[in-house]
């Protein structure tokens, strides 16, 4: 006999053995992402320049993370990656960009500004216990 907690989405029977996993809100038999740390920082980057920063962690693995940023405090964009040693704005994006990459000690951020005026970045991140270990 197994024990656990299952919460179904509205309109689905949590006691049904045929309940598809995608229609569950929570199932204690399944793994979920667990947040290690979260936070935000603000940084101004002047025209044509970049800023590099990082958040240290002690996970001993390269962790999953999700990073969002905004330059107008209204529209948030997903931070993706770019070259570590070139001007790393995302292809087809002609405004400020935030790249993120990870290793077993830090989560790195690279903020770039290819525009003709300063940009005030607000970067929010969530780092998870899950990663490549």
């Amino acid at each position: 006999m197994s024990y656990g907690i299952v919460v179904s989405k509205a309109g689905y029977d949590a006691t049904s053995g045929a309940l598809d996993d995608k229609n569950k809100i929570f199932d204690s038999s399944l793994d979920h992402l667990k947040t290690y740390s979260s936070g935000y920082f603000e940084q101004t980057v002047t025209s044509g320049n970049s800023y590099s920063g990082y958040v240290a962690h002690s996970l001993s693995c390269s962790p999953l993370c999700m990073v969002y940023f905004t330059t107008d405090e209204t529209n948030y964009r997903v931070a993706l990656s770019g070259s570590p040693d070139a001007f790393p704005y995302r292809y087809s994006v002609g405004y400020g960009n935030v790249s993120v990459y990870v290793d077993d000690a830090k989560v790195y951020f690279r903020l770039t500004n290819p525009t003709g005026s300063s940009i005030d970045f607000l970067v929010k991140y969530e780092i998870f216990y899950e990663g490549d270990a």
Partner: protein
Amino acid sequence: MAKGIKITKSGKDISSSTLDDFYMDSAYPLLKVHSYGTFETGVTGLKTITHSLGYIPYVLVFVQFVGWVDAASYITDEFYQCDWLQEGATVTYFGTVKVYDDDIDIAVGNTNEARSGAVDGFYYIFKDEVT
């Protein structure tokens, strides 16, 4: 009367109306892990990972960056979150993930060298459907 499960953070009241006060609130679906692991691409920088869910799931993929310097490719120690597609002066760098009903196709490398060599990465595929 609404029913559900809530778990508060330390020092927070269960009756709080602030969502950030909770580790879990069953009114809000959590991403459920379907599969995860590490991988190494083939020498072409390609990797297919089968999930067999029968629908398009949410995925997260991190992979090493394949750069280009002094007429040769190099691979970073760090892992970069897919997707990227970046044009340099003479080379385009890419790390992309295409998500299908039953698998995901990962491609990483640069356009100066088709055989970019084996690249390491890791992935999480969730049971939650992209709708």
